[in-house]
Each structure stands twice: as C-alpha cells, then as structure tokens.
C-alpha cells in the first residue's frame, strides 16, 4: 500500500502498510499502529490510516484514526468537563461519564491566587487542557495556556448546552480547518462553540432555541454525507423556524 501525504485509507488489523520512505528514524507513530519491521507498519485496529508530514516538521506522522473507543486522556488534549466536586486544592471533574474523574487544581487558572481565583460550582462546565497523565496517578487538567500563561479560551462555560458526539467526530470538528458543517453554520447562524476531544461539544447561541438548533445540526451531521450538508442545514433551519 502506498501512502501519500494526508491521504486516508481504510485499514484493518493484519494489513501491512509499507512505507515509501524507508528511513524509520524519520517517522513518528501515533495511536493504533505498530512497527512490524524496518519498512512496514501494522494497524492494531480498524480505521483510517493517516500519514501526514507537516511542513517544517522533520518527521512523518503515521496513525490510524478509529471511530470507536472511549476517550483516554493525553497531555495537551482540549476537553470539556463538568465539575462534580471539590476537595482540598482540587476540583473533581468528569470528562467522561462513568469513568474515573480527573482533577483540576483550584490554582490552575491564569493569575490565580489564594484570594483571587475563579470559584467554580458543582455541575459547572469548564473547557480545559489535559496537563498531566501519568501512570497510576490521577489525570490533571489545567485552564492556563502553557505558551502564553493566559486563559487562552479556557475556563468556565456559562450558558449554552453541551452534548456528546463520537470522539472521532469531535477530533474531526476540532482539527479540520473549515470543517464543512461548521463552515456552513457560520454562514447562517451565530454561535459560540467549544469542542472537547473527549467527545463533548458545548455550543451557545443567542437564545436557547437557537442553541438547540445548533446542537441538533451538529449531532445530526455525524451521519450526513459531505454533499448533503448544505441542503440539510438549510432544511433544519427552515423546520426550526416553523416551530
């Protein structure tokens, strides 16, 4: 199988993917692939094989993107979570229903001090970054942008509505520049959005009715073909206006 940059191919376990470029010192492996020998890769799960080399980066990245699976926190991931409690210097945050909760230090906010820090309430929503994932240790979140030390859009999300999509779809929405659905929605609607790679999307529009429309479009769009998007969005807006 030959691979080109940013190409997508369906692979299943047992396939062997031969690399064009035989220099294995120059590759980085992402999730769900293992190195079989010097020039072939083996997928460990069914999914889309992605190989990408960004300009300027020295290494080629290879991974298999799969639609199934639960979210497993990785450092740097942007997540939407719900505060479910507080103890000592930490908030307990749920980023995945029925999974172990993660921690958010009460000082992990820009310029937070003992007196001046955001007081979050149980059940409040936050947008945060995964700051540490060590084996056998609780996962920790942070609401500080590590490059600037400022808030970088992190923090409590007030108003709006949060709902779940598949992790793969959340990644798609977050990492695809001009994701077709969002591009179409921006033309017609006004909204704020926060996408967590944990499969949670928060959206807020100017009224709860409009928010629900956005929620509806995004959760429905998971099952649409690319060509249908424009038509379906228009249809839903029309249906919605008649309500």
């Amino acid at each position, binding site marked *: 199988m030959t691979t080109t940059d940013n190409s997508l191919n369906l692979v299943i376990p047992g396939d062997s993917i031969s690399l064009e470029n035989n220099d294995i010192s120059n590759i980085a492996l992402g999730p769900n692939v293992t190195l079989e020998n010097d020039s072939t890769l083996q997928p460990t799960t069914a999914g889309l094989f992605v190989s990408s080399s960004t300009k300027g980066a020295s290494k080629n990245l290879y991974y298999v993107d799969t639609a199934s699976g639960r979210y497993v926190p990785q450092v740097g991931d942007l997540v939407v979570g719900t505060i479910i409690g507080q103890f000592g210097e930490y908030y307990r945050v*749920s980023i995945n229903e029925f999974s172990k909760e993660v921690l958010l230090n009460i000082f992990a906010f820009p310029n937070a001090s003992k007196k001046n820090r955001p*007081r979050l309430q*149980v*059940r409040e929503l936050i947008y945060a970054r995964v700051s540490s994932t060590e084996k056998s240790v609780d996962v920790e979140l942070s609401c500080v942008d590590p490059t600037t030390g400022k808030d970088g859009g992190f923090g409590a999300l*007030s*108003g709006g509505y*949060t709902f779940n999509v598949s992790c793969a779809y959340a990644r798609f929405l977050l990492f695809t520049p001009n994701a077709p659905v969002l591009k179409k929605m921006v033309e017609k609607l006004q909204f704020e959005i926060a996408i967590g790679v944990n499969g949670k999307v928060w959206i807020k529009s100017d009224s709860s009715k409009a928010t*629900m429309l956005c929620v509806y479009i995004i959760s429905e769009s998971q099952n649409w073909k690319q060509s249908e998007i424009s038509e379906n969005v228009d249809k839903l807006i029309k249906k919605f206006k008649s309500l």
Partner: protein
Amino acid sequence: MPHIDNTLPIPNIITLHSLLSGNPPLRPSLRQLTEPRPLEISIASSTEYGHIEVKLGETYVSCKVSAQITSPYEDRPFEGTFAIGTEITPMCSPAFTSGVNADFSTAAPAIVPATAISVNNIDSNKEGQTSATAATNNINNNNNNNNNDNAVTMGGGAVMGLAADQAATEILLSRLIEKAVRRSNALDLESLCIIAGQKCWAVRADVRFLNYDGNLVDAASVAVITALLHYRKPDVEVIGSGEGSELVMYDEKQREMVPLSVLHIPICVTFQFFSTESVERNIKGENANSLVNNKNYIKENSDNDDDDLERMDIDNDAPRGSNEIIIVDATAEEELLSQGSMTVTLNSNKELCQISKSGGLNVDSVRILECCQIASDIVNKWTKEIKKVLAADIEKRRDLRAERVLSVVNDRSTE
C-alpha cells in the same frame, strides 16, 4: 450517548428548562410534546417463538417468553402461573450496577440537592438568553452566600429512570409492568390449566434492557405483550383418566403449536411533568421555619383535626401544578429533569388498566384526563404496529409446502 449520569451540567439544565417553558414549549430533540419516538418491533428469532426486540428511539428492550409444566398453586387449582422478570443490569447503561448493593453514587437520589438553581427569572416571553444569564448570575450568588445547600434543583420528584436510585427504579418498573400485563388479566391464566390441581403451564416473560435512553416502562410493556402474543406453546393432551392418565406433549412437527390466550393488549404510556414556574425551594430559609411552626401548630391544636388539615394544605410546599408541561416518551436527559411522572396503561378499547403516579408535581385532574386521551391515541398507534409486525411474521413463517400437502389431503371437492 446523552448525559445520563447525574452530573447534568448547569447550562444544560437551564437551557432545557427555558426550552420547555418557552412559547411554544420545545423539546431538545425538537419532537412534539405528545409525540413518542419511533417504535420499532422486531422478531429476534426466525425459528423460535416469543422472542421480541423493541426499540423506542435509542431505548432497546428484549423480551423472551418461555413456558414449562408445573403444578399450580394450591389455592388456585384451575389457573396456570405467569411471572415477569425485569432486571436492570449494567448492560443497558453503566449507570446501573448489578446486584443488590447498588452504587448509590452513580444513581442520584430522588431529590437532587447538588446545586442551587433558580429558574424563576425565566420569562417565557423574553428571549431565553437573557434569562439564562440572569439565572446563572443567581446561581453564583447562591453559591457564594450559602455553600450550595440552600435550594433544591429541578429534577425534584422524578421517580423513573436515574433520577431515582436504582433499587427504586427497578421495583417501580417491575410493579408497573406486573400491574399492566399480569394484573390486568391480559393473559388468560385459566387457559394454562392442564389437569386441575395437578398440572399447569408456568409462563415466564424475561425482559432484558439492552440500552437505556429513558422510558424503559413503555418499551418493556410493548415488548412483553408482543412476546406473549407471538409465543406458541407446544400442544399437550391428557390420555386416559383418573390414576392412570398420561400427559403427552407434541412437538412442532407433530402438532401445530398453540398460541397463548391473550385477552387484550394493554400498553403503558409514561408522561413526564415539568413546571414552568420556579421550583426553587428554600430549605434553610422560610420554609424550614414554617415547617417548624407547622409542627408546633399541630402540637398545640392536636385536638382540632380540621384546622390541622387546613394549615397543612397551605404549607404544603410541593410545586403547584398550574402551568405544567406534559411530555410523553421522555429521553434519559428529560427524565433527569422531570419533576414527576405518571404511567397510564390502556388498551385499544380505551379500557384503562392502571394509572400510576408516585409523587412529584401536582397535576390538575383535567390534565390527567387529557393525558389519557393522548395515551389512547398512542396506544392505538402502537397496537396497530404490534399487529402489523405479528401478521408479517406469521406470513413469513407459513410453510407453503406443508400447507399444500395438507390441503390435498383435506380436499373434499368432487372434481
């Protein structure tokens, strides 16, 4: 997967509430208030009888009917037995745990005291956004002042689903189904008698919940009754009489299997109630005092019963049901928010088998009658669906060759 653990975030609660109390009231799925999700009934096995799977939106229930020969209860020698097993396992949602020692941390208590949410600022005429912001501000105020525990959230009296704890959910659910199907005499137990006082059929319907997205009761009731209608038990015959009598059971090839005698088709329709008014109740403040006063009052006047009743009535701080929103076939998320539920069981002849409303919002009797009317329409629709599926299955199972052979054997035409 919707938010189905009890950590429904505040923004969701507020948005959903303002949607429901808006004008016109809307549901998150944009479904009509009295419109159930699409019902999908399928026959799970093409060879066996009585194995049905029912999908109501994302809620997925399977029911398998089986029968065996036992001796009847001593006090009811002319009747067979019928039992329904409804066990909720983690298979349908991780929110449910198996075993008696359910993990109550995942199942919220009936009244969720977790946060202070006041929704009294929401005005149905205003835009949702302004009210949502106002409510959020209010929350922050409450939080700063009183450490969260001064008010009760919405989701007060929901009894079904996760808003109640699992043990309660399970008991309520099995009782509802029992009442709907078994105690409404849907299955004619006397027809299950083989030899009075000695042998009878014991019919069992085992319900398995495969996925939970609200409204397990309605889906389960449809599954049980469809499975009963579909089930065929082997034909039996008693040869001889008295001491030396013998019971012969014929298998499918020897004799046509016999359907159970189902007298009517009761179907449950569950309604959830929401109040558009504020549901905030101040525990720490006024009401707590008034409760104390009330108690004193009762003590003082314990000899005057009428007065007590009056006073109790005034101080009854349950949400008033003046402008409640009623929805059918709630999803898991809607169940979490609901302030009360009611299950109505009807058959297509508009015979009411049960109304079950355990606690929750007060609802006007007129609205209850309206509910029954709505339920009747839904029941008619679902009964048609059940009959359609069963008829299609009978058609599918017809053994044309055997029928032709039999028709030749029995052909009495003189040509």
